[in-house]
């Protein structure tokens, strides 16, 4: 931040500027069920869970600088323990239903203490590989321990009413999940702002220095790992609570991957970045999956575009844009429009290409060609029938790509320059002399 920026905006105003949008967002979320059908409400429940999971995950990455490739274990273990507690309530235990996610959180926290102690002995790739190994070992045991974890049929239970709250309707589940997600995120925020949070950031930057300041970094990292696992477990518990069932498939790699992708897309460097990523990808998977069979490919491409062009994720871009707006530099509208047009053309071109290829290579397309006697029967994309072999279609696609490339060309140049600048800023420390 440049000092001038600070001078013109008082801290109180800055805080207000941050709090007001958050309050508005929260208000919208609270009012949401009035305007939403069951499917969207369910999607938002999943968004909350994914957001909390990603936030827990990002404590490890964004704060402590450790990338785990096996966080599904803690998410799933939280879910398992929550469903077991739910089953116990069903059998008459007096455990209060509203505290169920804490059961999952606590269980995963304890597991995280053990796993984290081992994993944080190393850093970087080695740390990541230890998390993978632990995940594989846990998965192997869990998948065979049917009496405990229910095998691939899973454990099912049912939400029991607690006092006045029935927990039978999805709307109850939504408010419940939202509340716990907000609690979880607040918890992480306080942790980040606490003295301990400062030390954790210190570990990410210069671990050895922290050690030589008298902090036991291994113990601290273990604690961070466990808290991260605990929050993830809480999210898992919310999932178990929502689905009223768990499954050993939760322990598989997919749930480790998703949270990583969410964090990258949202941006690990901004506190609420993972929430942005979780929201986008969850809704994308929830709705686009029904529109096209190739949604995973689109998601993968989006992921790669973000890794290459926006290394700090979408929220990173947002923060940059916000700073730019508040500074006095003029907004380069021309460039923005050009870029937008370029990316739009590229995206359309990609979608057209993929959908056409996808349709043409289907065996049923061959059958259609044979039965209709037309070599290249039309394919519907965007509700329009396209002749896949017609020069008009192919030329159109080529035009989209070349237009996109043309529009983005200067964009690519500036992007490269920005990237170089950013890289410099990240490398940060001036080189020591010879």
């Amino acid at each position, binding site marked *: 931040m440049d000092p001038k920026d600070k001078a013109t905006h008082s801290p109180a105003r800055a805080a207000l500027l941050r709090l007001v949008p958050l309050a508005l967002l929260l208000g919208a979320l609270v009012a949401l069920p009035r305007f939403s059908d069951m499917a969207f409400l369910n999607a938002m429940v999943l968004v909350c869970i994914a957001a909390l999971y990603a936030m827990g995950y990002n404590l490890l990455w964004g704060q402590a600088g450790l990338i785990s490739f096996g966080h599904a274990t803690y998410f799933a273990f939280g879910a398992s323990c929550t469903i077991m507690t739910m089953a116990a309530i069903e059998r008459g235990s007096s455990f209060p239903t509203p505290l169920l996610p804490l059961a999952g959180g606590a269980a995963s926290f304890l597991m995280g203490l053990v796993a984290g102690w081992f994993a944080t002995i190393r850093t970087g790739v080695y740390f990541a590989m*230890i998390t993978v190994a632990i995940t594989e070992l846990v998965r192997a045991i869990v998948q065979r321990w049917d009496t405990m974890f229910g095998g691939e049929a899973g454990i099912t239970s049912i939400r029991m009413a607690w006092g006045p709250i029935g927990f039978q309707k999805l709307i109850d589940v939504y408010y419940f999940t939202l509340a716990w997600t907000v609690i979880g995120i607040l918890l992480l925020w306080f942790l980040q702002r606490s003295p301990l949070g400062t030390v954790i950031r210190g570990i990410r930057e210069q671990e050895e220095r922290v050690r030589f300041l008298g902090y036991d970094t291994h113990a601290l990292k273990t604690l961070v790992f466990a808290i991260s696992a605990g929050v993830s477990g809480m999210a898992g518990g919310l999932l178990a609570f929502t689905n009223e069932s768990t499954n050993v498939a939760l322990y598989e790699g997919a749930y480790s991957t998703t949270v990583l992708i969410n964090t990258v897309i949202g941006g690990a460097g901004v506190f609420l970045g993972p929430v942005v990523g979780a929201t986008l990808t969850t809704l994308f998977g929830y709705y686009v999956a029904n529109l096209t069979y190739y949604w995973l490919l689109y998601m993968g491409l989006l992921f790669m575009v973000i890794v290459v062009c926006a290394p700090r994720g979408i929220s990173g871009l947002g923060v940059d844009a916000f700073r730019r707006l508040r500074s006095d530099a003029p907004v380069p509208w021309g460039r923005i429009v050009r870029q937008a047009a370029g990316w739009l053309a590229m995206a359309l071109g990609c979608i057209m290409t993929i959908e056409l290829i996808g349709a043409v290579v289907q065996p049923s397309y061959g059958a259609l060609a044979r039965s209709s006697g037309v070599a290249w029967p039309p394919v519907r994309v965007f509700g329009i029938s396209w002749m896949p072999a017609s020069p008009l279609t192919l030329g159109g696609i080529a035009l989209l790509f070349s237009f996109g490339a043309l529009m983005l060309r200067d964009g690519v140049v500036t992007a490269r320059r920005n990237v*170089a600048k950013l890289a410099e800023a990240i490398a940060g420390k001036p080189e020591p002399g010879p």
Partner: protein
Amino acid sequence: MDAFLVALLNGLVYGLLVFMVSAGLTLVFGMMGVLNFAHASFYMLGAYAAFLSGRYIGFWGGLIVATLAVGLVGLFSERLLLRKVRSFGHTQELLLTYGLFFVLEELVKLLFGPTPVAYRVPDELRFTAFTIGNSQFPFFRLLMGATALLMFFGTYAALRFTRIGLIVRAAVERPQMVSALGHNVPIVFSGLFAVGSALAGLAGAVAGMYYPTSPAMAHELGSIVFVVVVIGGLGSLNGALAASLLIGVMTSFAVGVESTFGDLFRALGLGGLALPGLEAVQFSSIAGVLPYALMLLVLLWRPAGFAGNRA
């Protein structure tokens, strides 16, 4: 004794297959410090490339085309993608290869469908190489092993006896130093990356005829390859070979064990420690996770791996 020999041979051949895929990865990892997640995808691409081209130019031609084509894919991935994010550090490179892994799998699904394609052992290679007791050892398993050994010695000789090999070895040890000596490290990087990918492509072309050539191929071998690289030690070809063989033999023998967890608990005098439902589980059914257990031990006690010399 025969059974032992057969198990040993099977283990060695499987180990050699794993080595084929890990060889390129370990070089790339050693030199660039990046675990290339997409490496196993190159292995998958190799199988598909060999399947496609083999229909027109025969099996052996398919092997060559697959090797070259995947090498090119590797080269382009490095120059067009990886290089763009290098300045952001290893994390970003890792994530990019992760995305590439994802996209390549989906692309193959788009083009070839989700089910396996008919890339299989050519009938003229389907004969018995030799017999041990009652077991007959098929020729193409031998071929898989031989390709791997050839690859090992070829790569080893290239690293050992050529000038480029010298630069590569030096760059694995001290990248900045080599750069400072005026060598064009980026070009060496690209070249090495392409060669590493080509090796994976060859491995896929050879292994794809035995293993189902499907989009899931990369997933199935993916993580085991990382395990080999980590256990073997950063950038060490010898270490990777040793680790691959160890893992191959270990899994081969583990599936022959009929003991259960219950037996283990009883043997440890913990018979009373009843973990209901777990004691009847056979060790052979968890043979697949043994490599991970081994990796965990290596990482905790000797993070530099078998042959590594950098902590």
